[in-house]
């Protein structure tokens, strides 16, 4: 439950942001991370940005998520 995913802030008005994670865009709030700016990468948990994160860390996490998805798909194909 405590998993947060990195996403880039692509729109920001007040504390309401649109963020992009691996091409998926969704709404998130920056209420808990007032220093977040447009273009920043942030960890998003349950609709809220909780921490800034650097490019390298975000890239590695996205890569890991992509690998897990690929692994799950292969696993499903093999078992199904």
């Amino acid at each position, binding site marked *: 439950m*405590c998993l947060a995913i990195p996403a880039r802030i692509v729109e920001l008005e007040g504390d309401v942001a649109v963020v992009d994670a691996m091409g998926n865009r969704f709404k998130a709030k920056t209420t808990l*991370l007032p220093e977040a700016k447009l273009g920043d990468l942030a960890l998003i948990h349950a609709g809220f940005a*909780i921490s800034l994160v650097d490019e390298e860390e975000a890239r590695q996490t996205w890569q890991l998520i992509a690998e897990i998805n690929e692994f799950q798909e292969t696993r499903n194909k093999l078992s199904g």
Partner: protein
Amino acid sequence: MLERIHNAQGLIDSACRKLGRQINIMEVCGTHTVAIFRNGIRSILPKTLKLLSGPGCPVCVTDQSYIDIVLQLADREDCLIATYGDMIRVPGEKGSLETRSAKANVKVVLSTEDALQLAKDNPGKTVVFVAVGFETTTPATAVVVKEAAEQAVENFYILAGHKLVVPAMCALVSEKNHNIDAFLCPGHVSAIIGYGAFAEVVDAFSRPCVVAGFEPVQIVEGLAEICRQLADGKAQLKSVYKAVVTETGNVSAQKAIAECFEPADGYWRGLGKIPKSTLRLKDKYSRFDAFKRFGLIETPSEDTTGCRCGEVLCGLIDPQQCGLFETKCTARTPIGPCMVSSEGACAAWYKYGRDKKT
């Protein structure tokens, strides 16, 4: 990346040889539990290093009495229950939220904002948000409680079940028969509370506390740092998740929590009552308290199913030592919360670890 893993593995091997005894490292985060299994990390560790899955999954540590209260509210015609998806399958005395969702008064939400919106969209209903989770999740609840107050949303309530990680860790190592040598501390809880928050565990109980991220290399490097400390006879506070976790954490989020909540004694599955380990709404926000609104009190009940989730959560047994594991309790027919939650130790053992006698 592989080189870093090999280096860390080498450090772990030499530290374990130097120690020459069994050591037990507990992870206190459901996401770590799953990542450790999914990446096969146990398979590269020496036999003398045992990983224990501690009370790191919010669903798993939620006491049965809380679940029964949620189900009781879900049966009321005037209530709408808003919950994160994790809680939906947890069985209570009378079914689960999943069996109620057919009646359309149980809604899965992805964010606390969605729960508040549900209240605004349904003025004729009393909307109760099932507020569980550790410090990563709590600030989001605090934000909407404050918003509900500012916007005078009359029909929004929360059933406060948020928990604090550090008091649970202290409770575990205060027990006489505990077997925990060190803690691998949760990455995203620490993003909020800061790694400095674990100082109490290091100082009062001399247990190394190392915060790690969720990628395989970060987990293995975290374990290597712990093994190094143990081999050197040290107990230190450290983060190997530097890109995200600072010593002081997210101060804005901590302020949001402190604005709405205060620590109270609370019940944990398997660990019992732990002083100042749960969060209740402060008096100024008590009108949003579902316990008060409906006159509810958590009264821990004895589990009569034979489920040993409590001992699993304390690191006293592995899931396969429970008589129900894989027999009556399976992923399809879960009996205890550690099998229900995808982040539970039993679910992870069932999915990934059945062939490995680690």
